[in-house]
């Protein structure tokens, strides 16, 4: 089985600062990590590999040259090979442009299963995975919390708000993984040595995938998303808690508060 995991390198912080002029993330000084859902996706892929003989796990990432570190980490966990999609022409891509680029790169590889994380902690869009599947014209199962293999099909436990769907899907297909799908393993010391000395990160630029990529779909110019305003959420004060009231007293007290605050 040929599995490709698409990952994103993201800043490791919940306090992401924004450049007020460009509305983009300030990455300087913030350590970078593999997006948690994507890392769970890597683990899910490695577990599939362990179950199906002669499987290969390729990991793919679009990003600046520094994203090499994220790919090495994936290799150290046990992925077989890695592709870094990096080019100035890709800069400023929104989800549409990103998925266009990644889908074009995927067309260069053989794959049975593509796994992406559900969403990235720096953007929270959850769009790139499903868009890749649409570009490639393959079935997609999103929000996977468990993946199993049954004969030549995959069984996916798809998380829903109040229930879980078990979906049987053939290959090729694309799965977006929740972080619950699998707890990522540690790298090993020797795995890291291999990731830097025997395994390789292939670097693909625009030219390497241009034959299947429409230039009008990439980079800032190819991105239909327009950010009108970005801001950091202000912290709200703690709410008032009214205690030891009967139901009727509670209603009266709440209504009085609403009036006091001119809400009603």
């Amino acid at each position: 089985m040929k599995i490709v995991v698409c990952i994103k390198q993201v800043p490791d912080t919940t306090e992401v600062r924004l450049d007020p002029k460009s509305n983009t993330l300030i990455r300087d000084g913030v350590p970078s990590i593999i997006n948690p859902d994507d890392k769970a996706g890597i683990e899910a892929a490695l577990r599939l590999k362990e179950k199906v003989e002669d499987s290969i796990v390729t990991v793919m990432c679009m990003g600046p040259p520094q994203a090499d570190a994220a790919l090495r980490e994936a290799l150290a966990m046990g992925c077989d090979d890695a592709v870094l999609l990096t080019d100035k022409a890709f800069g400023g891509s929104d989800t549409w442009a990103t998925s266009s680029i990644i889908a074009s790169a995927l067309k260069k590889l053989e794959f049975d299963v593509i796994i992406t994380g559900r969403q990235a902690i720096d953007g929270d869009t959850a769009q790139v995975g499903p868009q890749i599947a649409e570009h490639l014209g393959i079935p997609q199962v999103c929000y996977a919390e468990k993946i199993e293999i049954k004969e030549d099909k995959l069984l996916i436990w798809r998380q829903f708000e109040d229930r879980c769907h078990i979906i049987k899907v053939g290959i090729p297909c694309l799965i977006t993984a929740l972080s619950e799908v699998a707890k990522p393993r540690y790298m090993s010391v020797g795995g890291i040595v291999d990731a830097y000395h025997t395994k390789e990160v292939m670097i693909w630029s625009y030219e390497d995938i241009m034959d299947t990529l429409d230039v009008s779909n990439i980079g800032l110019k190819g991105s239909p998303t327009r950010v009108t305003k970005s801001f950091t959420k202000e912290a709200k004060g703690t709410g008032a808690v009214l205690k030891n009231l009967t139901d009727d007293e509670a209603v009266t007290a709440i209504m009085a508060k609403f009036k006091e605050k001119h809400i009603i």
Partner: protein
Amino acid sequence: MIGFTLSNERLLQRQMFRDFAEHEIKPIASQMDEEERFSMDLLKKLQKYGMMGIPYDKAYGGEGADILTYALCIEELSKVDGSTGVTVSVHTSLCCSCINDFSNEIQKEKYLRPLVESSKIGCFGLTEPGAGTDASGQKTTAGLDGDFYLLNGQKVFTTNSGFADIFIIFALTDPSKGTRGISAFIVERDTPGLEVSKDIPRMGIRAASNAEVALIDARVHKDNLIGVEGLGYKIAMNALAGGRIGIGAQAVGIAQGAIDEAVKYVKERKQFGRRISQFQNTQFKLAELQTKVDAARLMVWRAAAAKDNHENFAPLAAMCKYYASEVANDVTRACVQLLGGYGYTREYPIERMHRDAKITEIYEGTSEAMKMIISGLMKIN
């Protein structure tokens, strides 16, 4: 060329060691100390992720990394638990190195492979009741009896011996030759005549195993002699020189761990209406401590890099071990003080770190022994 920046590869190694220590060791460190018992489950995990064979060749099942990476590992493990640090260090630096550096191919296949491939644990028996800093005062003997040596004597303070599978035992094959009469043997745990006592109760590194090893007519095949007769003292000194990098790294780890805990505490603790981190006394004290730890760390890295480059690392290892262990004691004592009464309680890990720090000035060569090495090289006498 001098470089103080870690490569991306080493940064990734350090990140892995840190994640592992934080999630697998920190939650159980205090309990292991209280129970005075090393977790066998943790030992298996250390083996699984390659931490028991870091600087050894992949050809023998090792991880194919280097001494600097190994030092990073010991520091990160020791930041949360000094006992784990020394357990890995003794196995790696003292036991495996004797076989790796001096054994023949047959011995390497038979003993180094399982040790670094992670199915067996090693220990190192040099110290005796009457042979501490003066390691030349060995009393254990090894007399040849056909194809076997009969080992008789008593080893003490043998780290890892409680659960080790492979013992490197030093014994006199020719008592008339002094240190040139000492030989090194690979002894398997189930050898009849080898007996390990209960762990010796200690002040610190209480989770580590440390016991007495008695040898009563222990029959060891002559194939298990490392190198040739009389090479033992050289083998021991070589192992200890490398071991000091590990203990230096352990000391740096204990000290950094204490600073990290103290920083966390002073940012929360309020006295006189302010967080105690806002007092300049706190700030200056922590600045002093961090500077000392950074200096010690650079000395450890220098010694490790020298060993990796096959330079004469032994004096550098002695200096880093001497300095880092003194720093670990100064720093942990100061960190207990920063936490005041809470620092003295077992609710916080700093008192454990302070207790653990003390041994770094003693084992694998006391501070005084290190000064003998350093001053000897300075040709002062």
